[in-house]
């Protein structure tokens, strides 16, 4: 455009400096939004714009649905341009809390079992272990919050469908019960301590397993598609690490070799860790390419190391008769370490899986039924 000619500023409709907001009457434009003050008029829609679709024509809803069906079923395209989902933001505090919470839940089972079997001394110790393992949990969870000073907002509502809300309440209930049970023990109220401990084992059943539900209720492929396995795996780890921790505490408190409680704890930790190992291996095989998060990088190494730690513990356990009780202590420590590594591997697998765009795409191309 040459500089002599004035530029054309005339609007498409109306006269200069007098926009035709009120004047354009009669036909409503295609995208007219009556209720919103600033959306009444658009430059784009004169009476003859090509964009405006013919109003008389009734769209064929079946054809529209067919087009969507074709695009959304079948194979995913060769190029998946992610990110599709955002990676979880949880840091080191969360798996450590899972481990401590698991030990607390497992020890509460042990306390109940000791009471049922009539071993009051061991039950007292187990209740103390449960309280001790629970103590670091709230600080860890608060540290992980983006706004730690607002942690109390967790107790603002009771929301059964949110595992995070239920977990916060379970932790509160477990903490109160565990504290009261230990206090009752110290004050010599045996019957009250037993009752509180029994109630705590029930809450502990949720506390030890909800962490698996929490991870499973996300869009992250490796977590979401392990939904029937995560709870059982986490409960097994909780029972095993709880039994191992209580066993070591009981040994330290002078429980003699060959005491039925020591033998029972040995059986429990071995059985639970075996269940954990078997469930983990089945789940990993079942997931196939969706298990990428558990196979690469640091979580992959941790997962492998955890499995080997458990295997080593099992080997030592069955070699017990040759090595004596000390070897069994090493096995208990290996179970505790294996449990911790499993927790870190599972939580660490999330971000990797979420960033694996191919896995996310493939997950949504198949249904969740039967998984």
């Amino acid at each position, binding site marked *: 455009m040459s500089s002599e000619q004035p530029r054309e500023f005339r609007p498409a409709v109306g006269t200069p400096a007098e926009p035709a907001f009120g004047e354009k009457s009669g036909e409503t434009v295609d995208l007219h939004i009556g209720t919103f003050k600033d*959306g009444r008029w658009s430059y784009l829609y004169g009476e003859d714009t090509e964009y405006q679709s013919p109003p008389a024509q009734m769209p064929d809803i079946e054809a529209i649905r067919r087009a969507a069906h074709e695009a*959304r079923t079948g194979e995913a395209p060769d190029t998946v341009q992610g990110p599709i989902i955002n990676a979880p933001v949880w840091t080191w505090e969360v798996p450590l809390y899972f481990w401590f919470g698991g030990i607390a839940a497992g020890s509460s089972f042990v306390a109940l079992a000791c009471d049922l079997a009539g071993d009051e001394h061991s039950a007292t110790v187990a209740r103390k272990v449960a309280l001790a393992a629970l103590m670091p949990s709230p600080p860890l969870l608060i540290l992980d919050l*983006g706004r730690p000073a607002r942690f109390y907002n967790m107790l603002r509502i009771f929301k059964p469908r949110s595992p995070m809300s239920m*977990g916060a309440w379970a932790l509160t209930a477990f903490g109160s019960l565990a504290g009261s049970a230990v206090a009752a023990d110290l004050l010599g109220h045996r019957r009250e301590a037993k009752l509180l401990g029994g109630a705590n084992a029930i809450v502990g059943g949720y506390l030890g397993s909800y962490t698996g539900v929490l991870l499973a209720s996300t*869009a992250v492929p490796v977590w979401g598609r392990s939904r029937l396995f995560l709870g059982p795996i*986490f409960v097994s780890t909780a029972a095993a690490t709880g039994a191992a921790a209580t066993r070591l505490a009981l040994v330290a408190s002078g429980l003699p070799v060959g005491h039925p409680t020591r033998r029972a704890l040995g059986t429990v930790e071995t059985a639970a860790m075996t269940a954990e190992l078997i469930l983990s291996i089945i789940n990993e095989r079942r997931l196939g390419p969706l298990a990428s998060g558990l196979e690469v990088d640091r979580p992959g190494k941790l997962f492998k190391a955890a499995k080997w730690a458990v295997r080593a513990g099992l080997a030592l356990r069955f070699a017990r008769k040759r090595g004596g009780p000390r070897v069994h202590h090493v096995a208990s420590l290996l179970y505790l370490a294996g449990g911790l590594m499993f927790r870190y591997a599972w939580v660490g697998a999330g971000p990797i899986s979420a960033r694996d765009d191919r896995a996310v795409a493939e997950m949504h191309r198949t249904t969740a039924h039967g998984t």
Partner: protein
Amino acid sequence: MSERLGFFTDTTVCIGCKACEVACKQWNDLPSDGGTFRKGGSYDSTGRLSGNTWRHVRFVELADAGGGVREDELPDLVATAAGNGSPIDVEAAVAAFDNWVFMSDVCKHCTNAGCLDACPTGALIRTEFETVVLQADVCNGCGYCVPACPFGVVDRVPEDGRAGKCTLCYDRLEDGLEPACAKACPTDSIQFGSYDELVEVAERRVAALHERGVEGAYLYGAAEAPDEQLAGGLGAFFLLTEKPERYGLPANAESPVQENVVPATLAAMGAGLLAAAGVAAAFLWERTR
């Protein structure tokens, strides 16, 4: 309760100007994403939806659509402008215009919203416009909504600690104004209005495109068969022409909490009871041995 309000984003008329992103950032007082050009091998300069980016225009460079270039073959425009890059074949570039698609992505304001189901503090709420809004004064930054969103929308803001996402300009709606992005869109690729009206507009648009031979055009998130709904139907839905994964959208989606929490809890509680019983059984067995 007002009527349901939403967005209809028509990707076939999006020109990738990013005016919506700028308008959103300006109205909601959000910080910039930085000036890095070609993030992830694409000409996109802002990357992704995040706690600080509530509208994001995704550039879909259709490398496998035939005639296009692969991601690593994209000419470096910055270097070329500075005079030390490879010369650009203008004719080929014009011929390849069809291989560019833009999509202004936003929070979908799902009927079954995963973030809303996951939120333990009640910071995320459903408003009278049936949109999903995060109350920043309640959020404590637990981060559970982040993996609970199947569309990768909500994210924690690192500097702030709380989560952030599109509010569908809740503050503007209350004053009778349309959301900033829809207001700013120069091609009306982003259309805002009553959900029912928008679905009608969108259906007519798809029908018109089909008539003109764009047979791949379809609606993502509205007007599907009832058993194929995405998260119960999306308040903000899209008209797409490629498979959803090309735009970084999942082919199917449901609130992960609604989908998984019941089976997962049943399995977990079953295992919990079994474990408690197993522990007790081991003790009693040792007693009687």
